[in-house]
């Protein structure tokens, strides 16, 4: 077997020295494109020569029902086929999910929850008593203005990349074009806009 240098992902050492994997969990509803955005992110990371995985919470999908998708990005080969239980980044495509799903479950202490909402992060911090950082972006408005459709999955990727440097924005260009053809450019534009507009909770 080709032996790659392996970082233990089980005994997460204090300060996470040597820990290079970034884990993401996407919360959406069937039809909102959570799985697609996880896949686009993985493609972007792979195009940068890194290792990545993306996969949905497998099962029959119903339009409108809460769904999960996952992604991992690492600098070395990923030897893990389990779902993401302790994400670094949580992406919430639909803020109405916050009342029915515990999106903060398992988030790492230095993780971040990125929510599609016009409200400031403090609003959610207070309402749901989140212990980790929160960031918000009005992805709904950006998508309606630029895409003319209330589909925020690609928009939210821009916010997530701003909140936690996952990949270079430009690395999404080709995956978006391959996925959406002529609409790729507009999807890139909404991502850029969300990247600019993201409101990050103060680190304090």
């Amino acid at each position, binding site marked *: *077997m080709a032996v790659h240098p*392996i970082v233990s992902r089980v*005994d997460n050492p204090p300060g996470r020295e040597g820990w290079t994997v970034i884990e993401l969990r996407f919360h959406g509803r069937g039809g909102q494109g959570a799985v697609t955005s996880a896949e686009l992110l*993985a493609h972007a990371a792979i195009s940068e020569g890194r290792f990545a995985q993306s*996969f949905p919470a*497998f099962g029959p999908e119903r339009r409108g029902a809460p769904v999960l998708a996952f992604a991992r990005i690492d600098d070395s080969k990923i030897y893990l086929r389990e779902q993401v239980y302790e994400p670094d980044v949580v992406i919430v495509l639909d803020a109405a999910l916050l009342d029915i799903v515990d999106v903060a479950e398992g988030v790492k202490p230095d993780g971040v929850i990125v929510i599609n909402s016009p409200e400031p992060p403090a609003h959610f911090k207070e309402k749901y008593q989140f212990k980790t950082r929160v960031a918000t972006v009005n992805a709904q408005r950006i998508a309606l203005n630029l895409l003319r459709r209330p589909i925020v999955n690609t928009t939210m990727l821009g916010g997530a990349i701003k909140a936690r440097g996952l990949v270079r924005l430009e690395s999404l260009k080709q995956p978006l074009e391959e996925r959406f053809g002529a609409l790729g450019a507009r999807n890139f534009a909404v991502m850029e806009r969300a990247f600019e507009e993201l409101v990050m909770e103060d680190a304090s």
Partner: protein
Amino acid sequence: MSACVGLSATGCRTFTATSSQGLALMHEILFIVSAMRLPIVMATVNRALSAPINIWGDLSDVMANRDIGWVQLFGNNGQEVYDLTPCCFKIAEDRRVLLPVMLNIDGFTLSHVVEPIETLTQQDFDDFLPPYEPAQRLDVNQPISMGPVGPPDIFTETKKVHDDALVASRIVVNEVLDDFGRRFGRSYRAVEEYQTDDADVLLFTIGGTLGETGHTAVDALRARGMKIGQVLLRLWRPFPFDDIRRIFTGRKAVIVYDRALSVGGPGGPVASELRAAMYGRPDAPAILSLIAALGGRDVRAVEMAEQIENAVRRAGEGEYPAYEMVGVRE
């Protein structure tokens, strides 16, 4: 699969894919393909058999087809599946083999994942796998009969020839994997070892889900001081008895993870085979059979590490059962 039989019999290179209930439905024809020595290649995306209705991954489909007389390989990740596919044709079509080959892929955890794969060029494929020259074919100008009646005076002999051919295919499997490794730099073996040199406990897995997650569990247990290694079974049929005996003899314990259960039988299919391989040997290890990850149940590396530690401890205290279903909710 019946259509594939016809296609292959006329001399075409033939590939198909199936999964779960689809594999169960073609069960009858699978024996016919191998006994007719048709070098069909089939990808099987391993998923559970109903009931209850379950579309998720485990190995109950392939394990119910253990005895169909095909060469059966497992790919542990997307790259392996990609690389092993041309190898399957080369093995199947070798004149010393002429048997169908099944390439198994864990359902969902491998089949529905985006991950990086290094691709080969068309020229690479053409060089590695030249155009197919069938050993024999249905041809109206030179009529032959294929798959005729095999009465009692010949049936046993055909089974003997079939068994001899499948056992001997082992040599060709190794040759083809070596050839692939030399050409493209990615080497595969029938049985892979990881951290086994000084290990007195071995984790034994089949299929990529527990194979790769198990890799991380082994690293964690090593970090805690356990002298553990991992053995990944890539070739399920013909079962590589010689490699298995060489690797497992003299170890203290083997923890075997099966993603299928022989209900009312001896537990996990892979554990059964390992016990058969090691039976009566003086330095045989304790073989601890764990059944997990059925019907898509997610198994975490931390859970595997705990289950392995628990099994080793209980085996040391002499109280481990013939097999155990782990992760069962009370």
